[in-house]
């Protein structure tokens, strides 16, 4: 199988983990950890977009996501998967229905409370890396921790450096995002999402802008986060091969969940 080569993928330095397998399906399947209790759920969730002409995007979703689950959301464009992700991640408000995080309805929170929740419990990875260009790699990862205010600057710096080392970006701490390859930039954004010890990471097409090799690196990173750190991940993706690597695969169509498959039950 011919796959595009990516010269931007860093050559591993001594002590770094070896290069990942090059195809999503080449990866040996490891067992998923047992899911925990429900951390995030939605009940009768609807969302209409537009101000003059209302377009229904979600038509009443019921869903429960447990701890240590790696959930993929797939579906055609316009099926409502990204909208659902934004609602789950407290980035948007539903038209009706409830979003419950750890037993509390977060759909009624005001702007500041939602911002605080995002800072303290959630991490985000988007299709484009969305890093702040004026800050170094290390600073990009530190900023959410500093904003949350739970760590001193020194602690935040240590933690950010540790996370970046773990995902193979140790040599690039002082570089600006523009000096990194696309895959490296996306890994920085994962490090930013992880560094603040989130309970859930929301990823919107995290591999959409990457070649397959870097896509695999991102997926392996996510899998490791679920397996080793017990983080719950909700990922929207168009790529079926990556979706299949998740522990639970949800397929959406026209604003509804049409398929919900848990790998552990297969």
């Amino acid at each position: 199988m011919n796959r595009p080569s990516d010269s931007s993928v860093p050559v591993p330095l001594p002590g770094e983990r070896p290069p990942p397998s090059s195809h999503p399906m080449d990866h040996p399947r490891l067992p998923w950890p047992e899911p925990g209790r429900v951390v995030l759920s939605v009940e009768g969730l609807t969302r209409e977009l537009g101000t003059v002409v209302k377009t229904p995007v979600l038509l009443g979703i019921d869903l429960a996501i447990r701890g240590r689950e790696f959930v993929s959301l797939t579906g055609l464009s316009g099926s409502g998967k990204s909208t659902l992700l934004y609602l789950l991640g407290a980035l948007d408000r539903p038209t009706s229905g409830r979003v419950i995080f750890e037993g509390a309805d977060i759909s009624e929170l005001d702007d500041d409370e939602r911002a605080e929740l995002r800072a303290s419990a959630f991490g985000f990875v988007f299709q484009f890396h969305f890093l702040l260009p004026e800050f170094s790699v290390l600073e990009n990862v530190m900023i959410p921790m500093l904003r949350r205010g739970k760590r001193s600057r020194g602690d935040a710096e240590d933690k950010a450096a540790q996370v970046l080392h773990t995902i193979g970006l140790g040599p690039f701490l002082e570089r600006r995002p523009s000096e990194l390859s696309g895959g490296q930039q996306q890994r920085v954004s994962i490090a930013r999402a992880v560094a603040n010890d989130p309970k859930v990471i929301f990823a919107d097409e995290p591999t959409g802008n990457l070649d397959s090799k870097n896509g695999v690196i991102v997926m392996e990173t996510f899998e490791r986060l679920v397996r080793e750190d017990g983080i719950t991940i909700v990922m929207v993706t168009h790529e079926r091969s990556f979706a299949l690597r998740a522990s639970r695969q949800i397929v959406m169509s026209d604003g509804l969940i049409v398929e919900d498959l848990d790998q552990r039950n297969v």
Partner: protein
Amino acid sequence: MNRTVLFVALRQLWERKLLNGIAVLGVTLGVLTLIGINGIMQGFQQKFLINIIKVSPHVTIKDKQLRPRPSILARFDPGFVVTRVSHETPSDRQLRINRPYEIVRGVEAIEGVVGAAASLAGSAVLAVGAKQYPVDLRGIDPPRQDRVTPISQFVSQGSYRALSSSADAMIMGVGVAKELGVKLGDVVRCGAALGPTMSLKVVGIFDAALPPIDNRRIYVTTRTAQILLGKPDIIGQIEIRLRDPERASELREKLERSLGYDAESWQEANANFLALFKQQNMIIGFVVGAILAVGGFGILAIQIMIVMQKTRDIAILRSIGFHRRDILSAFLLQGAIIASIGAAIGSVGGHYLVTFLGTLKIKQEGLVRSETFMVYEDPVFYFYGVGFALFVGLLASLIPALRASRVEPVDVLRGQIG
């Protein structure tokens, strides 16, 4: 303010050095202009006012009675006598201040009065050969008058004391001497409408650096003035000096009420100039305000441009937990920093500009005479400059800051904006 917000705001500010530098330059020019123009305009005004306050009385009691006694006929019941007289001849009684020296003593006893002096003023003509020159004649009691208007400090040639030593002595302004071409010791003929012509010796020449006075005024003793003006034993005015010149209007009112004579404060005597200065200051205020407003628009335009460019970054910050007020604070802080830096550079530049202008040799002759550019530095200019710059900077940042704080991350993520 959260320290992370400060960190983000400072870094973003630093990373746009060129754009923000232009905004700083706008504010700098505004503050520099404010300090520079005020330094120049106030330099002229202050020099004029300081000199006029120094050389002129603060309050002058005049010989015009505010409540003159009615004519004899008018004092009787009009039912019994004829009160309408055709071609009534005006009284030949000359205007005067009654019991002037008692008034002088009484005025000097008032709190805040430094000195009071009785004098007589009128118009006269000086003649040297065929040259004639109209002057403003002042008959004074030299020692007493010097406490009110310290002419002795401005005598550049001869002696002020010599004025008391002789009845035919005269001190003249430097402009009068120049017009007539006379020097110290020269004898000049002096005459007025109702008195005899006298020959007076120039015993002193004064230079108050105020052309309206230097070019017109001569001083003689009261007695000599009374002879020249044909007003024997008459005192026409009492001049008063105050510790605080700003209290002149207050004292004027009090004196008018108690003495019944018309009185004039130095502000009234120079009302035309003061009104002109007021208008000048208003125009300067408008010009400087406009320049600072342009600086503010510079900040506004640049900040709006940055907000539009940084919409995506704002969305990132919001998604990772920054509050709306954090974004608002960051942009307001950037505006305040731009304004502060601009104000600081403008203030330092303004100081050096004013200092430099003060060293320029420019001969000026008008209301005030000076050999150099007249400048004046007042901490108030700097206070206004910095205050106004900060106000404009914050105001100009408010719109972009509000706009930035209203960015919804989800709109950017959906690709609707940004």
